[in-house]
């Protein structure tokens, strides 16, 4: 057996796996999407049908907002936690990363406990303002749940990146006259950009596809995974469900691909 043949054979298990669990189901999904009585027009409906389009935009906006908020919060806390040592720091980090262990349903449940009809915020606002604030079942509730879900994933990546920052870079900037904010803007944030892109892409993809939290909370909001679920189970509308799935996959994949190409450049520049 030549070396080339051997190497080729080594790829066989991977090829089988990819074919069985990725290519075939994806192909089937794409075909199903076009199998309804509208044919290929089902795909166009994702953008043309007002309800589907609104849901798609809603989902993208929610995922974007979640990603940005997560990055802001995680960057500030990550920088602080990596650079200051204080009693209870380890406990705080453990608590911040604790939600990693929760499924979406539990996160949704916690949001209900916080901002639901019997929730803490409702109680407090009722007593203070005489008006019960309930937002668990709205877009804000979902946003809060996704935030809670995303922060641990992002904060660990950012803390690792902060740890790797060369402290002399900041010292060099300060020696050249840069004040604290300027150092953050010109040195720290650009150096962390690859971490932002990598972890931000994960946060975005997670928020795009998260189902458990949405299922627990989303009684009066439409996000794409919920829409797919209702089309699939309640309306038995397989074609639309499949087309929406493909759409969701494409958007998420495109964002990840964009982040990767962009991140690749940034990483090279930081080398």
């Amino acid at each position, binding site marked *: 057996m030549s070396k080339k043949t051997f190497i080729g054979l080594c790829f066989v298990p991977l090829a089988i796996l990819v074919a069985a669990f990725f290519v075939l189901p994806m192909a089937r999904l794409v075909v199903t999407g076009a199998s309804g009585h509208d044919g290929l027009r089902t795909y166009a409906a994702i953008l043309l049908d007002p309800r589907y389009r609104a849901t798609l935009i809603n989902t993208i906006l929610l995922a974007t907002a979640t990603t940005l908020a997560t990055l802001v919060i995680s960057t500030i806390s990550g920088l602080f936690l990596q650079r200051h040592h204080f009693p209870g720091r380890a406990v705080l980090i453990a608590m911040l990363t604790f939600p990693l262990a929760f499924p979406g349903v539990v996160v949704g449940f916690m949001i209900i406990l916080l901002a639901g009809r019997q929730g803490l915020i409702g109680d407090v606002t009722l007593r203070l303002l005489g008006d019960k604030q309930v937002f668990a079942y709205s877009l804000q509730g979902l946003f809060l749940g996704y935030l809670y879900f995303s922060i641990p994933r992002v904060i660990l990546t950012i803390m690792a990146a902060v740890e790797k920052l*060369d402290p*002399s*870079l900041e*010292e*060099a*900037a*300060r*020696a*050249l*006259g*840069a*004040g604290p904010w*300027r150092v953050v803007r*010109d*040195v720290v944030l*650009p*150096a962390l*950009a690859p971490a932002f892109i990598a972890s931000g892409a994960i946060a975005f993809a997670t928020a795009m596809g998260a189902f458990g939290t949405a299922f627990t909370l989303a009684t009066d909001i439409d996000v794409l995974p919920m829409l797919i679920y209702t089309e699939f189970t309640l309306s038995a509308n397989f074609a639309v469900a499949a087309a929406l799935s493909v759409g969701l996959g494409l958007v998420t994949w495109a964002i990840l691909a964009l982040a990767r190409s962009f991140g690749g450049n940034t990483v*090279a*520049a*930081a*080398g």
Partner: protein
Amino acid sequence: MSGNDKTNGHGVALRVHACAKTFADGTRALEPVTLDVARGETVVLLGPSGCGKTTLLRIIAGLETPDAGGRILFNEADVTRVPIERRNVGMVFQSYALFPNMNVSDNIGYGLKIRGVSEAERKARIAELVALTGIAGLEHRRVDQLSGGQRQRVALARAVAARPSVLLLDEPLTALDAALRERLRGELNRLLRTLGITAIYVTHDQAEAMALGDRIVVMRRGAIAQVGTPRDIYFAPANRFVAEFVGAANILEAECNAGVLLLPGGRLALANDAAAAALNGHANGRIFAMIRPESIRIIAPDGAALTGEVDSVSFVGDRQRAAIGGVAGKPIMVDVPNSTPIKAGDRVGLSVDPGDIRVLAGDTA
């Protein structure tokens, strides 16, 4: 600041007054150190790792604050409480510390940009500096496209661009390979003279210190062991530590009697002042004498006052270095010209000019 002359003849007289540093964990990194640096002078802080040289540099820079009582003065103005970003210092780091998100000219111009210098003026200054540091043509390169030597030049240009009061260099050549290090050392020397800037240069490499310093501050265990010109440090080390750290040195521990060293291999006469130094406080007794390997000559053993046997000879290029046993407690190093035939096992006589023997003050090990 004198912005009027193009060659940047600027810089301040620097005074370090009783600066000590104790870290939060109680480690004493620096004993109270006082040091005066003249305007335009290059002072090298030399010492092994952990001697406090970098801590002292960081205190001068404003990256560390000295313990209570310590003060840093730039031209008599107390800057001890002034943070580094308002101290107007230039810093060059061992790791280069170039900003990876900026190209070469943006790196060099960063300090000027912060000071609000107009773009036209910035461009002119950058052009002047790339020419001075020999990196013209690389202005638009990303820093990851530069070699180590080029990076260090960019770092240097960046540090002096805004005409700092003091230029601080922390082991700037250590990360480079030997040949490049030597070449850049020469260029750096020329540049420091051209700029006429007050500079503090930290290194553990004594050859670098000799080549660059107007004066050298030898440090040890957080304190100054000796301050002097490179020649002072080399020929008149204050103590055994300096003698051994700077250059190669034979330290002979021997009985001294009436101006003569009594060694296992014979007798060695001291010069009058060395003898006086030996007797001062020691009377007759054991003293430490230092002889550089190049001050010892090999002569015929017959009739020589000092004799020994060659242990080993190693060829070092421009000369050979022999270890001679039986002269003192341990083998002594002697530099022998390549023209002198010598091999292990030879019996040799040694001759030393009494003026080349230096009696060291006590053993401060």
